[in-house]
């Protein structure tokens, strides 16, 4: 089994065993609570990070109010006085502790219920990271195809140029080679070309972390083909805030009409969103004080489309052209939006 350890399952098995011991009484609650309070003292809640279950568990542990205040003292008389005071007011402290404890339990219970609702929502609309774990991959951009378009679109741009999602960083390397101060972000950690700066980040997470006006240009790809429409409209708004005056946004995307054809069934079926049409991106970006144009579209090469025989009736040739538009829509496009 050594090389086929399912790490996630292993951790789940350990958690299941912990639950079993608690429920069976094998792990007495008082015994565990005392040790876990010691753990909490050396692991303050801010150190737990963003693990929802752990933070709620810590809140549940903290909901217990110990009404017996310590009475030790280096001076015997003070300790004696403390014990007398504790005995005198213990009924009142218990009364207050019961109310505080009840309130804390109710709040943590409410947070647990809210967590379950969020879990249920994420079952219906999984976040991108979970979809990737299930097998859906990010789009792989053909940097060689789009590189010249992007370089031309960025002419005159100063400041940092971000490409997200940048995959293996090939386009970032190309832009850096063309003299731009380029870096990339991609949610999947992978080896980038030597000397290429790539962050492991979701596109929107990274954009939200940037100060306003921090970018000279923003190149969007990958995420624009798989995020839900709500996230894409948000991305257009964020792009408007993060790209400086005189800056440029370039959207590289598959055309929705040809999108499914080029994807594996797993990718297509597990995608939480679909690409937008070029005109929609232009509309979204223009609403953010950009001036957009569709810079290029790549269609299926002529040799692969329906061809009318030489000398064919013009009506027949026109019908072939119409059929080609229906059967072979543009595969992908670039929208270039300049900040007004």
């Amino acid at each position, binding site marked *: *089994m*050594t*090389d*086929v*350890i399912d*790490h996630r399952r*292993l*951790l789940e098995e*350990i*958690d299941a*065993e*912990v639950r079993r*011991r*608690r429920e069976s009484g094998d*792990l007495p609650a008082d*015994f*565990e609570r005392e*040790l*876990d309070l*010691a*753990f909490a*003292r*050396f*692991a*303050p809640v*801010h*150190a*737990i*990070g963003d*693990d929802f279950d*752990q933070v709620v*568990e810590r809140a549940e542990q903290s909901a217990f109010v110990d009404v017996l205040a310590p009475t030790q003292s280096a001076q015997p008389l003070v300790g004696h006085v403390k014990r007398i005071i504790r005995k005198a007011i213990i009924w009142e402290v218990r009364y207050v502790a019961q109310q505080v404890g009840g309130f804390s339990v109710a709040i943590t219970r409410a947070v647990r219920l809210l967590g379950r609702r969020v879990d249920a929502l994420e079952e219906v609309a999984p976040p991108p990271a979970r979809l990737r774990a299930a097998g859906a991959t990010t789009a792989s951009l053909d940097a060689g195809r789009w590189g010249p378009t992007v370089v031309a679109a960025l002419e005159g741009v100063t400041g*940092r140029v*971000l490409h997200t999602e940048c995959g293996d960083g090939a386009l970032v390397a190309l832009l850096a080679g063309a003299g731009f*101060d380029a*870096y990339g972000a991609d949610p999947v*950690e992978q080896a980038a070309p*030597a*000397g*290429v*700066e790539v*962050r*492991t980040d979701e596109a929107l997470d*990274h954009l939200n*972390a*940037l*100060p306003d006006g*921090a*970018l000279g240009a923003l190149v969007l790809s990958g995420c624009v083909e798989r995020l839900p429409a709500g996230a894409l409209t948000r991305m257009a708004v964020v792009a408007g805030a993060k790209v400086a005056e005189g800056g440029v946004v370039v959207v590289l995307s598959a055309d929705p009409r040809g999108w499914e054809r080029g994807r594996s069934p797993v990718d297509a079926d597990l995608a939480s969103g679909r690409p937008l049409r070029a005109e929609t991106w232009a509309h979204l970006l223009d609403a953010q004080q950009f001036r957009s144009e569709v810079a290029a579209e790549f269609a299926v090469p002529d040799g692969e489309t329906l061809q009318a025989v030489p000398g064919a009736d013009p009506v027949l040739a026109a019908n072939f052209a119409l059929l080609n538009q229906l059967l072979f829509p543009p595969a992908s496009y670039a929208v270039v939006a300049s900040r007004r």
Partner: protein
Amino acid sequence: MKVAYVVPRYGTEVLGGAEYGARMLAERLVSMLGWDVEVLTTCALDARTWAEGYPAGEVDLNGVLVRRFRSAAGRDPGFEAFSDSVLRSPESASPADGQRWIDLQGPVNPEVIAAAVEGDADLVVFYPYLYHPTVRGMPAVGRRSVLHPAAHDEPPLRLPLFRDVFAAAGGLVFQTHGERRLAEHLFPVATTPQIVMGLGVEPAAGDAAAARGVTGLGEGDPFLLCLGRVDDGKGTGLLARFFAAYKDRHPGPLKLILAGPVADRPPQHRDVVVTGPVDEAVKWGLLREAQAFVSPSPFEAFSIVLIEAWTAGVPVLVNAACLATTEHVRRSAGGLVFGGYAQFEVAVERLTGDAALRSGLARRGGAYVGRNFTWPVIIDRYRGFLERAAARAAG
């Protein structure tokens, strides 16, 4: 290419995490790339007081020119009390209190800063974020500065004065993705050129017999190992307590070895062995014989010993509250985590009771180290990053 490192203390006797990391990198820029590297530092040896243990002056240490300057002040006796009051609510500390906090903490060394500003290095690398030379030196050096923060989520990081320190960096070198996200969350550095890099390890064969001599264990006796300062703040007291509870419920030959300088000695227990500081041969001997390596600390910026454990072929068990070590475990699948006693108990049972699981986890950890934390991999990435930072600073 000429690089100057600014660190609060430096030398082969300095084994602290950040300073040790700076020395490892500085020496390899010389030995692997042939770069011109100097270190600007104080004469301090003790990180708690900044008491001076080195003479001022210049010395060559493994190809690195070390220039030590006398400090104007070390750690002020009133620092701890003042720090306690300020760090109760660090976000709301006034600018004056922040400045006073950094001055009292020390080491205050204007000569180091002057040497950094006036020097001809292409880049000045500050390491770590927390101390006076970095706080005062970074803004003075400007875009030639590169910061290795070595930060974790601790109260001082939330002092407002560090916002300007991080913002002044021409480049940032992080040890983990968690550290990078933390910095981006707290400071406006998302567009600052940066890299997540970590540190490499140099494995040694180790001396198993010497290790047994130090611990008093027999050949094949099973034990869990914790390396580093034996300090309640590092979680060793908690680990000893958890282990004692575990042994009450699981009698047997399993021992816990705590190997490192002792700041807080845990209560005596027949199955807990505290060795004190150990040399490299004993350290690697212990690592190679351990059933599992335990990192109980909730506050680690990187944890080089975790990387060493995987290099030695040992699985790890880490504190779930520590961002850095849990990130290593999540990315490598080379160990387990505990977020309380119950998880600790079940994890130790699994690790000590299943040799195949131990070797499988250790192999995953070893592969992770091979991909990310060998010196050729690290120095190659570091070179690319520094060259771009230097070009940017020059342009």
